[in-house]
């Protein structure tokens, strides 16, 4: 069998997962080929023009801390940035950017094209070349064979994609793209379990036809923000978003036309996400709600298209238009693209390991929407991990896994591969049990060293984080060491700050625990050093939330002994006596790597875990006896 060319790693799909996977693999030294159906559609944002928000923004920061690309590209493409949840605690502060879709694509393309070890080609891959259960390469629609040692599937919603608007439907990917049909069959033939999911998007309207005077302006923050820890953009011109609301007429239009809604006529079979329901689902499921928010958002500086956030729909086009025009400010709206639903094939992610490698196939990885997730950020995070592990696999180095206690990326992947998902999966802060430790502000402190150690995060990043660590340690030391006593001028100073007087000598560290005292407020009075805003924020969070941070650290430590107790790969769960039938089935299917992971499988009880623990210890002793 001959191949026309060969690479160490091939990545199928150049969406948000594929781009991160290809960059990570190439940066870690593997010759890499990134394959896309259309070179003009690299890093396309087929849905909303925004990046980040609670948990999603955390993912973007983590991708950046490890040496990924999404944050840097978003910073360059940003039309507006807002820090959300600022009135709430530090765990849920999160950055959200509106992005210029075209600039985003352009910036990502530049990053890809700059990478020495990376080639990008426009091809449609129809088949996989196997040697036993190991990957050998791919076959294109033209019959070309390209060899590889590892293959990352990042096909998004393109596998047997079907677009549905009203009573019409046609095969295709998002935004008029081709879809990939044969590859699904190749996966099924190999024995991979597929399922069908659905997602959707709202209409895009002409910004010139919108009456903004009838809407509420949503400007970006005045303070400058960046997603990346190494971006140096200090200011950007921002564009506003606009808020308006649906009303009774909108809802009546939808209700009157439900008999034509594919979601209710049975024309859509795939499972859609609860996390971004279409407007028809919202009206049906929450009939008591009189109005729903609608955000009108710019898609770029050089386009008239505006995205109508909140009105995702697959209703027929005449209904879409009537519904839009019932809304304040959209009375004369002209539609440039109609909303649609898309059905696609994805895999059951419990077939994957925590590295995103398939359990049963050597060298095959999967990332992004094909794994049943939704969202650009979720896709990019998985792409990064799959790309890293594909490179490590080729280089015969130990795999790279982030735990639930280390990163949202760990939560995301563990949820997917351990529990599976019955609908497109979205990350949320409430999915993370150690939320206060996994803050967006400390992603670099948590992860950059990990990225550096595997050869992904560059020297500059690492040096910057080391400096930050040092500054934090020195300042904390100084604050603990500096004791203030209840003398007159100090008491006076405290009164002025609106806080109570001292009763006894106390350290500045303790003083900063008071809710209304900031580092800035006491800095000059006690001759403390000037800090970067990032270090200052770390200091304040670490001091003010010390009690809760410690509580979470203890929780992590208590769970650690189960998380680190590994289950031997050769275990036969059928021979563990006494466990329930359901547990046996689930364990055999998921094949968890650790006791901690096993305990998170639904249907596995604490008693099952006890029996499993004893069985593993028995196995170990028998092996020892034989040896």
């Amino acid at each position, binding site marked *: 069998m001959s191949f026309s060319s060969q690479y160490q790693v091939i990545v199928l799909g150049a969406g948000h997962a594929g781009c991160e996977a290809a960059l990570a693999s190439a940066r870690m030294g593997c010759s890499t080929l990134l394959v896309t159906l259309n070179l003009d559609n690299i890093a396309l944002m087929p849905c909303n023009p925004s990046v980040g*928000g609670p948990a999603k923004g955390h993912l973007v920061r983590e991708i950046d801390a490890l040496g990924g690309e999404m944050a840097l590209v978003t910073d360059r493409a940003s039309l507006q940035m807002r820090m959300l949840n600022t009135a709430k605690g530090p765990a849920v502060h999160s950055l959200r950017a509106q992005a210029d879709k075209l600039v985003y694509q352009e910036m990502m393309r530049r990053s890809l094209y700059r990478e020495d070890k990376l080639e990008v080609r426009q091809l449609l891959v129809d088949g996989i070349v196997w040697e036993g259960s190991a990957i050998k390469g791919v076959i294109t629609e033209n019959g070309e064979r390209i060899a590889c040692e590892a293959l990352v599937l990042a096909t998004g919603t393109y596998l047997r994609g079907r677009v549905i608007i009203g009573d019409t439907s046609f095969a295709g990917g998002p935004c008029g793209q081709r879809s990939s049909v044969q590859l699904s069959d190749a996966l099924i033939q190999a024995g991979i379990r597929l399922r069908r999911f659905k997602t959707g998007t709202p209409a895009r309207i002409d910004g010139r036809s919108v009456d903004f005077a009838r809407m509420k302006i949503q400007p970006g923050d005045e303070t400058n923000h960046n997603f990346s820890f190494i971006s140096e953009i200090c200011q950007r011109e921002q564009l506003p978003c606009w808020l308006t609301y649906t009303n009774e007429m909108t809802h009546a239009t939808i209700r009157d036309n439900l008999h034509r809604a594919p979601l209710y006529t049975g024309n859509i079979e795939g499972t859609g996400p609860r996390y971004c329901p279409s407007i028809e689902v919202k009206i049906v499921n929450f009939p008591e709600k009189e109005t729903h928010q609608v955000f009108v958002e710019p898609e770029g500086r050089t386009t008239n298209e505006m995205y109508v956030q909140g009105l995702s729909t697959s209703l027929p086009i005449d209904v879409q238009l009537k519904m839009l025009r019932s809304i304040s400010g959209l009375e004369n709206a002209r539609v440039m693209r109609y909303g649609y639903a898309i059905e696609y094939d994805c895999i059951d992610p419990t077939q994957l390991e925590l590295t995103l490698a398939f359990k049963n196939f050597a060298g095959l990885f999967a990332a992004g929407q094909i794994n049943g997730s939704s969202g650009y950020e979720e896709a990019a995070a998985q792409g990064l991990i799959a790309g890293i592990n594909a490179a490590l696999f080729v280089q015969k180095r130990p795999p790279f896994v982030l735990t639930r206690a280390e990163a949202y990326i760990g939560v995301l992947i563990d949820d997917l591969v351990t529990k599976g998902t019955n609908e497109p999966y979205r990350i949320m802060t409430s999915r993370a049990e150690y939320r206060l430790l996994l803050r967006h502000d400390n992603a670099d402190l948590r992860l950059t060293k990990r990225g550096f150690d595997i050869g992904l995060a560059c020297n500059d990043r690492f040096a910057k984080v080391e400096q930050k660590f040092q500054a934090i340690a020195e300042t904390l030391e100084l604050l603990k060491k500096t004791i203030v006593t209840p003398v007159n001028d100090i008491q006076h100073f405290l009164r002025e700050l609106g806080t109570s007087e001292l009763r006894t000598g106390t350290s500045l560290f303790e003083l900063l625990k008071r809710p209304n005292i900031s580092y800035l407020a006491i800095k000059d009075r006690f001759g403390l050093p000037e800090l970067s805003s990032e270090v200052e924020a770390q200091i304040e969070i670490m001091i003010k939330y010390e009690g809760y941070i410690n509580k979470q650290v203890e929780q992590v430590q208590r769970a650690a002994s189960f998380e680190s107790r590994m289950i031997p790969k050769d275990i036969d769960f059928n021979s563990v006596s*006494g466990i329930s039938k359901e547990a046996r089935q689930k364990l055999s299917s998921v094949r968890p790597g650790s006791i901690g992971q096993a305990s998170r499988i*639904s249907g596995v*009880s604490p008693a*099952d875990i006890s029996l499993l623990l004893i069985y593993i210890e028995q196995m170990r002793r028998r092996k020892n006896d034989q040896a």
Partner: protein
Amino acid sequence: MMEADTIAAIATSVGHAGIGIVRVSGPASNEIARAVFRNSRQEKIAVFEPRRMIYGMVINPQSEEKIDEALCVFMPGPNSYTCEDVIEFQTHGGPLVLRQLLRVVIEQGARVAQPGEFTQRAFLNGRIDLMQAEAVMGVIQAKTEAALRNSTQLMNGELSRRIRLHRQELLNELAHIEASLDYPEDDIVSPESGTLLLLLEQTVRGFDNLLASSKTGKVLREGLRTVIIGKPNVGKSTLLNALLGEERALVTDIPGTTRDSIEEYISIRGIPLQIIDTAGLRDSADQVELMGMQRTRAAIESAGLILLMIDASAPISESDISILNDLPAIPVIVVVNKIDLPQLADLAGWHDLTRKYPVVSLSAKEKAGLDKLEDMIEKLVFANEAHLSIDVCLDNSRHIDCLIAAKSNLIAAMAAIADGMPLDCVAIDLRAAIQSLGQITGETVSDEVVREIFAKFCLGK
């Protein structure tokens, strides 16, 4: 989430032993001993010398009240049975003292051990051999099966019902908080700290009520289901009243007075019993009485122990024999009542019939011989013949254990709100409380919260 924690249990059988041992194993055991043990000069022990027995007393650290005299010994890991840090308290063997001690140990952060859990830890830490480990697996299996058999009864118990209600309320509140944190731009009003505080206070009060009632065993709607049966007017209600020490059931000399089943909860020698007094079984045409008898039969079906009563002052009848022949395969004690009256029953003949059951003779009316009945109940329970009851006892103490842990989580949450901590911190304590109130297999609190969020709020764009 699975966590390595500190476990505790009464290590001796809960009976009339001379001494009783409470064993504690895990990282917190030393700290717990410091909190609950005082030496003979009533001082805290700063450092426990390994393997040295110290005389002193165990106390309730919240009230500083003495529970009992005790010996305390610290066995640091890995040189202990479980290879973990182990503390053992030896006290007088009374069940009340042991349970009080176990309770303060739990209040200090330990949890009640599962059956076989000490041995399981010993095995996992490389201490005991395979044969012993297999025995432990047997215990865990038996426990799981028994729990399954018993689960309907337990789930319907009043205590677990109330705990579930509290849990659901907290889950609703957490879902509201989480929705507001994860969807800052959707039109959700964040929970008011005042309202939240009020709910938490109410919940803590609810917990306190449940805990208080669990002490007397009055509202503890769980326990070994003990059903008193017999033909009408053999003295079933009198026996119930005698065991309760109060007039709960109406007693007359008219046969068929008890038309419905009466349930009461008592503790005999530390064993919680749910006693059900039933309508007497006989042929009757009275509709109400017939319904009562139907319920009696249903009660027999779900019983863990049956007290079959016969009247020593009346000849043995066909009804007595047919009741005897219909008994299901569960432990039965034959109670021969009214020994204070002239004996007309052919007791020798009875003993032939009832050879497979233990017999206790007493007079419920005169309260004579009740201790023999209590002895027999205790013996059956701890000989494992009425083995279901072990799980019931255990699950009761587990419920209490949950409540205590959850209460301290809620108190922490209230303190956080009072300190002006943000909701994402308060959520940490709320989650812990919900987790404490119920372990759901494999499903985490996060899964439940996410489900609640989308059931309640219209979110997402």
